[in-house]
Protein backbone atom coordinates (compact mmCIF):
# COMPACT_ATOMS: atom_id res chain seq x y z
CA UNK A 1 0.00 0.00 0.00
CA UNK A 2 1.32 3.43 -0.91
CA UNK A 3 -0.02 6.35 1.02
CA UNK A 4 -1.47 9.33 -0.84
CA UNK A 5 -0.25 11.72 1.87
CA UNK A 6 2.56 14.10 1.01
CA UNK A 7 3.65 14.17 4.65
CA UNK A 8 4.84 10.58 4.74
CA UNK A 9 5.47 7.68 2.44
CA UNK A 10 4.79 4.08 3.33
CA UNK A 11 4.99 1.03 1.19
CA UNK A 12 4.43 -2.18 3.12
CA UNK A 13 5.92 -4.39 0.41
CA UNK A 14 9.18 -2.49 0.07
CA UNK A 15 9.87 -1.11 3.52
CA UNK A 16 8.03 -3.34 5.93
CA UNK A 17 7.61 -1.43 9.17
CA UNK A 18 9.41 1.71 7.99
CA UNK A 19 7.72 5.06 7.30
CA UNK A 20 9.55 7.71 5.32
CA UNK A 21 8.72 11.32 6.10
CA UNK A 22 10.12 14.80 6.06
CA UNK A 23 11.50 16.27 9.30
CA UNK A 24 9.13 19.22 9.02
CA UNK A 25 6.13 16.95 8.71
CA UNK A 26 7.11 14.84 11.70
CA UNK A 27 7.96 17.80 13.94
CA UNK A 28 4.87 19.75 12.98
CA UNK A 29 2.70 16.69 13.45
CA UNK A 30 3.95 16.43 17.02
CA UNK A 31 3.55 20.13 17.72
CA UNK A 32 0.13 20.37 16.16
CA UNK A 33 -1.51 17.64 18.13
CA UNK A 34 -0.17 18.46 21.55
CA UNK A 35 -0.48 22.20 21.88
CA UNK A 36 -0.59 23.21 25.53
CA UNK A 37 -2.43 26.50 25.96
CA UNK A 38 -1.57 29.21 28.43
CA UNK A 39 -4.97 30.65 29.44
CA UNK A 40 -4.42 34.40 29.65
CA UNK A 41 -7.96 35.03 30.92
CA UNK A 42 -8.44 38.74 31.48
CA UNK A 43 -12.18 39.31 31.09
CA UNK A 44 -15.45 37.64 30.12
CA UNK A 45 -13.87 35.78 27.17
CA UNK A 46 -12.19 33.63 29.81
CA UNK A 47 -15.60 32.19 30.67
CA UNK A 48 -15.98 30.99 27.10
CA UNK A 49 -12.43 29.69 27.28
CA UNK A 50 -13.46 27.62 30.29
CA UNK A 51 -16.44 26.33 28.34
CA UNK A 52 -14.06 25.23 25.59
CA UNK A 53 -12.20 23.19 28.17
CA UNK A 54 -15.39 21.64 29.50
CA UNK A 55 -17.07 18.43 28.43
CA UNK A 56 -19.52 19.97 25.98
CA UNK A 57 -17.00 21.54 23.61
CA UNK A 58 -13.97 19.60 24.78
CA UNK A 59 -10.77 21.09 23.44
CA UNK A 60 -9.16 17.74 24.30
CA UNK A 61 -10.42 16.50 20.94
CA UNK A 62 -7.69 18.66 19.40
CA UNK A 63 -4.97 17.75 21.87
CA UNK A 64 -4.99 21.14 23.56
CA UNK A 65 -6.66 20.36 26.87
CA UNK A 66 -3.61 20.72 29.06
CA UNK A 67 -4.05 24.31 30.25
CA UNK A 68 -0.75 25.37 31.77
CA UNK A 69 -0.68 28.29 34.14
CA UNK A 70 3.08 28.30 33.98
CA UNK A 71 4.27 29.97 30.80
CA UNK A 72 7.35 27.74 30.79
CA UNK A 73 5.20 24.71 30.05
CA UNK A 74 2.91 26.31 27.49
CA UNK A 75 3.02 26.53 23.70
CA UNK A 76 0.10 28.79 22.87
CA UNK A 77 -1.02 31.84 24.80
CA UNK A 78 -4.75 32.45 24.45
CA UNK A 79 -5.31 36.12 25.30
CA UNK A 80 -8.93 36.02 26.36
CA UNK A 81 -10.20 39.45 27.29
CA UNK A 82 -9.47 43.13 27.65
CA UNK A 83 -5.80 43.99 27.94
CA UNK A 84 -5.35 47.20 29.89
CA UNK A 85 -2.18 49.22 29.62
CA UNK A 86 -1.51 48.43 33.24
CA UNK A 87 -1.69 44.69 32.47
CA UNK A 88 0.22 44.93 29.18
CA UNK A 89 3.74 44.59 30.66
CA UNK A 90 2.69 41.46 32.51
CA UNK A 91 1.20 39.94 29.35
CA UNK A 92 4.42 40.68 27.49
CA UNK A 93 6.55 39.28 30.31
CA UNK A 94 4.57 36.05 30.38
CA UNK A 95 4.92 35.78 26.61
CA UNK A 96 8.67 36.27 26.97
CA UNK A 97 8.80 33.51 29.58
CA UNK A 98 7.23 30.97 27.23
CA UNK A 99 9.68 28.61 25.54
CA UNK A 100 9.87 28.59 21.77
CA UNK A 101 8.11 27.57 19.65
CA UNK A 102 5.17 29.64 20.86
CA UNK A 103 2.00 30.99 19.37
CA UNK A 104 -0.65 33.50 20.37
CA UNK A 105 -4.40 33.49 19.82
CA UNK A 106 -6.14 36.85 20.32
CA UNK A 107 -9.56 35.76 21.52
CA UNK A 108 -12.40 38.23 21.07
CA UNK A 109 -12.79 41.84 20.05
CA UNK A 110 -10.90 43.34 23.00
CA UNK A 111 -7.75 41.29 22.58
CA UNK A 112 -7.84 41.78 18.82
CA UNK A 113 -8.47 45.51 18.66
CA UNK A 114 -9.45 46.93 22.02
CA UNK A 115 -13.06 46.19 21.20
CA UNK A 116 -15.57 48.61 22.54
CA UNK A 117 -13.05 50.07 24.99
CA UNK A 118 -11.83 53.08 23.07
CA UNK A 119 -10.36 54.67 26.11
CA UNK A 120 -7.28 55.83 27.93
CA UNK A 121 -6.95 52.54 29.78
CA UNK A 122 -7.18 49.84 27.11
CA UNK A 123 -4.49 48.50 24.83
CA UNK A 124 -5.91 48.80 21.31
CA UNK A 125 -5.12 45.23 20.34
CA UNK A 126 -2.69 42.81 21.95
CA UNK A 127 -0.78 42.65 18.67
CA UNK A 128 0.91 45.89 19.72
CA UNK A 129 2.96 43.99 22.27
CA UNK A 130 3.03 40.34 21.17
CA UNK A 131 2.91 38.71 17.70
CA UNK A 132 -0.55 37.25 17.15
CA UNK A 133 -1.10 34.18 14.98
CA UNK A 134 -4.89 33.92 14.98
CA UNK A 135 -7.55 36.52 15.74
CA UNK A 136 -11.01 35.42 16.85
CA UNK A 137 -13.91 37.78 16.33
CA UNK A 138 -16.85 37.94 18.71
CA UNK A 139 -17.76 39.54 22.00
CA UNK A 140 -17.23 37.04 23.43
CA UNK A 141 -16.65 34.42 20.71
CA UNK A 142 -18.60 31.19 20.86
CA UNK A 143 -16.55 28.21 22.02
CA UNK A 144 -16.84 26.82 18.48
CA UNK A 145 -15.08 29.95 17.23
CA UNK A 146 -12.15 29.31 19.52
CA UNK A 147 -12.00 25.69 18.40
CA UNK A 148 -11.97 26.95 14.83
CA UNK A 149 -9.13 29.29 15.74
CA UNK A 150 -7.22 26.38 17.23
CA UNK A 151 -7.74 24.36 14.04
CA UNK A 152 -6.55 27.31 11.96
CA UNK A 153 -3.50 27.61 14.18
CA UNK A 154 -2.84 23.89 13.74
CA UNK A 155 -3.06 24.33 9.97
CA UNK A 156 -0.59 27.19 10.23
CA UNK A 157 1.81 25.20 12.39
CA UNK A 158 1.74 22.37 9.87
CA UNK A 159 3.15 24.69 7.21
CA UNK A 160 6.01 26.01 9.30
CA UNK A 161 9.65 25.26 8.30
CA UNK A 162 10.35 23.81 11.73
CA UNK A 163 13.43 21.76 10.87
CA UNK A 164 15.18 24.74 9.35
CA UNK A 165 14.39 26.87 12.35
CA UNK A 166 15.65 24.22 14.72
CA UNK A 167 18.91 23.93 12.80
CA UNK A 168 19.46 27.66 12.59
CA UNK A 169 18.52 28.30 16.22
Amino acid at each position, binding site marked *: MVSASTDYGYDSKVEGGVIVSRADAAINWIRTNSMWPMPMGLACCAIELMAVGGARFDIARFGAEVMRFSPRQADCMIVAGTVTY*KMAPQVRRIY*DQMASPKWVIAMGACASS*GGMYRSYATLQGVDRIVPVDVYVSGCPPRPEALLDALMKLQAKVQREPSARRLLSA
Partner: protein
Amino acid sequence: MSADFLAALRSRFPQAADRASADHPAVNVPLADVVAVLKFLRDEHGFDLLMDVTAIDWSEGANPRFTVVYHLLSTTRSGSYVRVAAPCGGNDEAPVAPSVTSLWPGANWHERECYDMFGIRFEGHPDLRRILMWEGYPYHPLRKDFPLAGIETELPGADVVEETGTKVVAAPWRVDRSSPRAVRSTSPRPSLAPRTRAGATASPGRTRRRCGR
Protein backbone atom coordinates in the same frame (compact mmCIF):
# COMPACT_ATOMS: atom_id res chain seq x y z
CA MET B 1 -38.30 59.11 57.75
CA SER B 2 -35.60 61.04 56.05
CA ALA B 3 -36.74 64.33 57.53
CA ASP B 4 -35.65 63.56 61.10
CA PHE B 5 -31.92 63.31 60.46
CA LEU B 6 -32.02 66.18 57.98
CA ALA B 7 -33.69 68.42 60.56
CA ALA B 8 -31.16 67.35 63.18
CA LEU B 9 -28.35 67.97 60.72
CA ARG B 10 -29.63 71.43 59.92
CA SER B 11 -30.01 72.45 63.54
CA ARG B 12 -26.53 71.15 64.37
CA PHE B 13 -24.89 72.52 61.20
CA PRO B 14 -26.80 75.64 60.05
CA GLN B 15 -24.33 76.04 57.19
CA ALA B 16 -25.58 72.79 55.57
CA ALA B 17 -27.84 73.49 52.60
CA ASP B 18 -30.20 71.23 50.72
CA ARG B 19 -28.85 69.89 47.48
CA ALA B 20 -31.02 69.15 44.45
CA SER B 21 -31.51 65.41 44.16
CA ALA B 22 -33.86 63.22 42.15
CA ASP B 23 -34.00 60.42 44.68
CA HIS B 24 -32.21 60.35 48.01
CA PRO B 25 -31.70 63.38 50.26
CA ALA B 26 -28.51 65.31 49.68
CA VAL B 27 -26.79 68.19 51.41
CA ASN B 28 -24.12 70.69 50.54
CA VAL B 29 -21.67 71.50 53.28
CA PRO B 30 -18.52 73.60 53.41
CA LEU B 31 -15.31 71.63 53.05
CA ALA B 32 -14.21 72.46 56.58
CA ASP B 33 -17.31 70.81 58.08
CA VAL B 34 -17.48 67.70 55.94
CA VAL B 35 -15.69 65.36 58.34
CA ALA B 36 -17.76 66.61 61.28
CA VAL B 37 -21.00 66.19 59.32
CA LEU B 38 -20.08 62.65 58.25
CA LYS B 39 -19.07 61.74 61.81
CA PHE B 40 -22.37 63.15 63.07
CA LEU B 41 -24.36 61.12 60.54
CA ARG B 42 -22.39 57.98 61.31
CA ASP B 43 -22.45 58.18 65.09
CA GLU B 44 -25.84 59.69 65.80
CA HIS B 45 -28.01 58.66 62.87
CA GLY B 46 -26.81 55.18 62.01
CA PHE B 47 -25.19 55.88 58.62
CA ASP B 48 -22.59 53.23 59.24
CA LEU B 49 -21.65 52.35 55.66
CA LEU B 50 -19.67 54.57 53.33
CA MET B 51 -20.93 53.48 49.92
CA ASP B 52 -18.78 55.65 47.72
CA VAL B 53 -16.51 58.64 47.55
CA THR B 54 -16.66 60.30 44.18
CA ALA B 55 -16.27 63.70 42.63
CA ILE B 56 -17.75 66.04 40.05
CA ASP B 57 -15.66 68.06 37.62
CA TRP B 58 -17.66 71.15 36.70
CA SER B 59 -15.17 71.73 33.88
CA GLU B 60 -12.55 74.36 33.38
CA GLY B 61 -13.43 77.86 34.47
CA ALA B 62 -16.00 76.81 37.06
CA ASN B 63 -15.38 77.96 40.59
CA PRO B 64 -14.96 75.76 42.48
CA ARG B 65 -14.15 73.32 39.74
CA PHE B 66 -14.33 70.12 41.78
CA THR B 67 -16.95 68.88 44.19
CA VAL B 68 -16.35 65.79 46.27
CA VAL B 69 -19.39 63.64 47.12
CA TYR B 70 -19.72 61.09 49.91
CA HIS B 71 -22.48 58.50 49.69
CA LEU B 72 -23.70 57.06 52.99
CA LEU B 73 -26.03 54.15 53.67
CA SER B 74 -27.56 53.02 56.92
CA THR B 75 -27.65 49.27 57.40
CA THR B 76 -29.83 49.59 60.50
CA ARG B 77 -32.54 51.89 59.15
CA SER B 78 -33.74 50.39 55.92
CA GLY B 79 -33.62 52.58 52.83
CA SER B 80 -31.72 55.41 54.44
CA TYR B 81 -29.24 56.82 52.01
CA VAL B 82 -27.75 60.29 51.90
CA ARG B 83 -25.21 62.14 49.84
CA VAL B 84 -22.95 64.80 51.30
CA ALA B 85 -21.28 67.12 48.83
CA ALA B 86 -18.55 69.67 49.44
CA PRO B 87 -16.65 71.97 47.09
CA CYS B 88 -12.95 71.14 46.99
CA GLY B 89 -10.26 73.51 48.19
CA GLY B 90 -6.87 74.10 46.63
CA ASN B 91 -6.55 75.11 43.01
CA ASP B 92 -7.81 73.55 39.78
CA GLU B 93 -4.61 71.60 39.22
CA ALA B 94 -4.38 70.20 42.73
CA PRO B 95 -7.76 70.25 44.46
CA VAL B 96 -7.80 69.08 48.06
CA ALA B 97 -10.37 67.47 50.34
CA PRO B 98 -10.11 65.91 53.80
CA SER B 99 -9.72 62.15 54.03
CA VAL B 100 -12.36 60.19 55.91
CA THR B 101 -10.22 57.08 56.36
CA SER B 102 -10.29 57.87 60.08
CA LEU B 103 -14.07 57.34 60.06
CA TRP B 104 -14.29 54.46 57.58
CA PRO B 105 -11.14 52.48 56.76
CA GLY B 106 -12.90 51.49 53.54
CA ALA B 107 -12.59 55.06 52.31
CA ASN B 108 -8.97 54.28 51.53
CA TRP B 109 -9.52 52.78 48.07
CA HIS B 110 -12.42 55.08 47.22
CA GLU B 111 -10.21 58.07 47.80
CA ARG B 112 -7.34 56.52 45.89
CA GLU B 113 -9.66 56.02 42.91
CA CYS B 114 -10.91 59.59 43.22
CA TYR B 115 -7.32 60.82 43.33
CA ASP B 116 -6.39 58.69 40.34
CA MET B 117 -9.31 59.79 38.18
CA PHE B 118 -9.73 63.43 39.23
CA GLY B 119 -6.46 64.33 40.93
CA ILE B 120 -8.09 65.31 44.20
CA ARG B 121 -5.59 65.09 47.04
CA PHE B 122 -7.15 63.73 50.21
CA GLU B 123 -5.37 65.24 53.18
CA GLY B 124 -4.63 62.74 55.91
CA HIS B 125 -4.87 59.74 53.61
CA PRO B 126 -2.35 57.09 54.74
CA ASP B 127 -1.35 55.90 51.27
CA LEU B 128 -2.53 58.15 48.47
CA ARG B 129 -1.36 56.34 45.34
CA ARG B 130 -3.04 55.68 42.00
CA ILE B 131 -5.21 52.59 42.10
CA LEU B 132 -6.38 51.99 38.49
CA MET B 133 -3.75 53.63 36.33
CA TRP B 134 -0.08 52.81 36.78
CA GLU B 135 2.41 54.76 38.86
CA GLY B 136 3.91 57.53 36.79
CA TYR B 137 0.87 58.04 34.55
CA PRO B 138 0.77 61.82 34.09
CA TYR B 139 -2.97 62.53 33.72
CA HIS B 140 -6.26 62.23 35.57
CA PRO B 141 -8.58 60.66 32.99
CA LEU B 142 -12.02 61.61 34.32
CA ARG B 143 -11.32 65.33 34.21
CA LYS B 144 -13.37 67.18 31.64
CA ASP B 145 -10.34 68.45 29.76
CA PHE B 146 -9.08 64.91 29.23
CA PRO B 147 -10.06 63.53 25.79
CA LEU B 148 -12.23 60.42 25.82
CA ALA B 149 -9.91 58.45 23.58
CA GLY B 150 -6.84 59.12 25.73
CA ILE B 151 -3.52 60.84 25.24
CA GLU B 152 -0.37 59.32 23.82
CA THR B 153 2.05 58.53 26.64
CA GLU B 154 4.72 56.03 27.57
CA LEU B 155 3.78 52.43 28.31
CA PRO B 156 4.00 51.49 31.99
CA GLY B 157 6.73 48.90 31.35
CA ALA B 158 9.97 50.38 30.04
CA ASP B 159 11.25 46.91 29.10
CA VAL B 160 8.13 46.35 27.01
CA VAL B 161 8.70 49.63 25.19
CA GLU B 162 12.24 48.56 24.51
CA GLU B 163 11.15 45.17 23.21
CA THR B 164 8.14 46.18 21.15
CA GLY B 165 8.74 49.84 20.35
CA THR B 166 5.11 50.58 21.20
CA LYS B 167 3.50 53.33 23.24
CA VAL B 168 0.21 54.09 24.90
CA VAL B 169 -1.71 55.45 21.93
CA ALA B 170 -4.93 57.39 21.89
CA ALA B 171 -7.80 55.18 20.75
CA PRO B 172 -9.18 55.87 17.27
CA TRP B 173 -11.80 58.55 17.60
CA ARG B 174 -13.79 60.58 15.11
CA VAL B 175 -17.20 62.21 14.85
CA ASP B 176 -19.20 60.47 12.17
CA ARG B 177 -22.13 62.65 11.14
CA SER B 178 -23.83 59.80 9.29
CA SER B 179 -23.66 57.60 12.35
CA PRO B 180 -26.14 54.71 12.63
CA ARG B 181 -27.51 56.19 15.84
CA ALA B 182 -29.06 59.12 13.96
CA VAL B 183 -30.60 56.75 11.41
CA ARG B 184 -31.99 54.47 14.06
CA SER B 185 -33.99 57.19 15.78
CA THR B 186 -35.96 58.13 12.67
CA SER B 187 -36.51 54.78 10.93
CA PRO B 188 -37.54 51.32 12.17
CA ARG B 189 -34.79 48.99 13.25
CA PRO B 190 -32.94 47.90 10.09
CA SER B 191 -32.76 44.26 11.15
CA LEU B 192 -36.54 44.09 11.40
CA ALA B 193 -37.31 45.80 8.09
CA PRO B 194 -36.99 42.77 5.74
CA ARG B 195 -39.11 40.65 8.05
CA THR B 196 -41.86 43.29 8.08
CA ARG B 197 -41.92 43.38 4.31
CA ALA B 198 -42.13 39.59 4.10
CA GLY B 199 -44.95 39.57 6.62
CA ALA B 200 -46.97 42.04 4.53
CA THR B 201 -46.94 39.71 1.50
CA ALA B 202 -47.39 36.47 3.39
CA SER B 203 -50.76 34.92 4.13
CA PRO B 204 -52.44 35.74 7.44
CA GLY B 205 -51.98 32.19 8.59
CA ARG B 206 -48.29 32.36 8.00
CA THR B 207 -48.09 35.67 9.77
CA ARG B 208 -49.89 34.24 12.77
CA ARG B 209 -47.62 31.26 12.91
CA ARG B 210 -44.65 33.56 12.78
CA CYS B 211 -46.00 35.60 15.64
CA GLY B 212 -46.58 32.47 17.66
CA ARG B 213 -43.00 31.35 17.41
